[in-house]
């Protein structure tokens, strides 16, 4: 595996390409080391799939990337679901931050 550096933009690019994602938000939650990311992924490929299948799709698309980082979190929505959530939350949707402390992940060096 090449020692590529993983960044918000490299993950975004990979998801856009590999999952035909129409909207991707990637947020570094590592607090600087660049090893933990959380994301919101909007792709029509999620349609008709349950949460587990969607995550498996993302995990497969980012297999090498996830293997290199400490923590990975994702919210997977279809374009329709995303529109609905945007309307419901007043645009206040985004990558999940559960399990983090104010958006920074803790304890993943273990």
């Amino acid at each position, binding site marked *: 595996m090449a020692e590529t550096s993983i960044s918000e933009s490299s993950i975004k690019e990979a998801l856009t390409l590999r999952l035909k994602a129409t909207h991707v938000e990637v947020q570094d939650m590592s607090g600087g080391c660049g090893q933990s990311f959380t994301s919101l992924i909007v792709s029509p490929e999620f349609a008709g799939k349950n949460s*587990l299948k969607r995550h498996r799709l993302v995990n497969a698309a980012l297999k090498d990337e996830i293997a290199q980082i400490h923590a990975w979190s994702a919210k997977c929505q279809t374009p329709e679901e995303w529109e609905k959530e945007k309307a419901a939350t007043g645009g206040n949707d985004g990558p999940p931050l559960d399990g983090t402390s104010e958006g920074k992940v803790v304890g993943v060096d273990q």
Partner: protein
Amino acid sequence: MLSRSILSRRLLRQTAALPTTATASFSTAALRLPTTTTFSSSTRPLLRPAPASPLLRRLLSDQTRQAIDKAVSSAPIVLFMKGTPETPQCGFSRASIQILGLQGVDPDKFAAFNVLEDAELRQGIKEYSDWPTIPQLYIDKEFVGGCDIIVSMHQNGELAKLLDEKKVLVKGEEAEAEAAEAKKE
């Protein structure tokens, strides 16, 4: 050097025989598990040829698979986590254990395994579940998901429904006492 320890038959018997002191309080401490038990090495050979390649290293040995099979079957609800229910070592494991607590999972029907105690388990469970991260939740031997899925199922009501169907929640007087306790606080 990989630790040779893995979940032994003996350990799982201990798990099953854990004292059934179902406390009604929903602190995570109520979920007391075999995470504090050390894995026994008795079932494993002391030496094994070093893996020839990174590819081979990633293959799950039959022995590890069997041990994980047993771990997954050791209780209706099984969580593979970093740290123990009392002292999670990672925010995602903490969030997951807190949700199981909030849902009212019966400690007698729950087992947690600390992957930090066993390198083979830590790597093996990822392959076993085809899931790259910890924590991992199993319900009735079926893989449910990681922290993101646990959180979203908790929020949308699916988790409560599933746990209720599987009859793994603290029931009756205990649950009522707990609700009353929660109201007081």
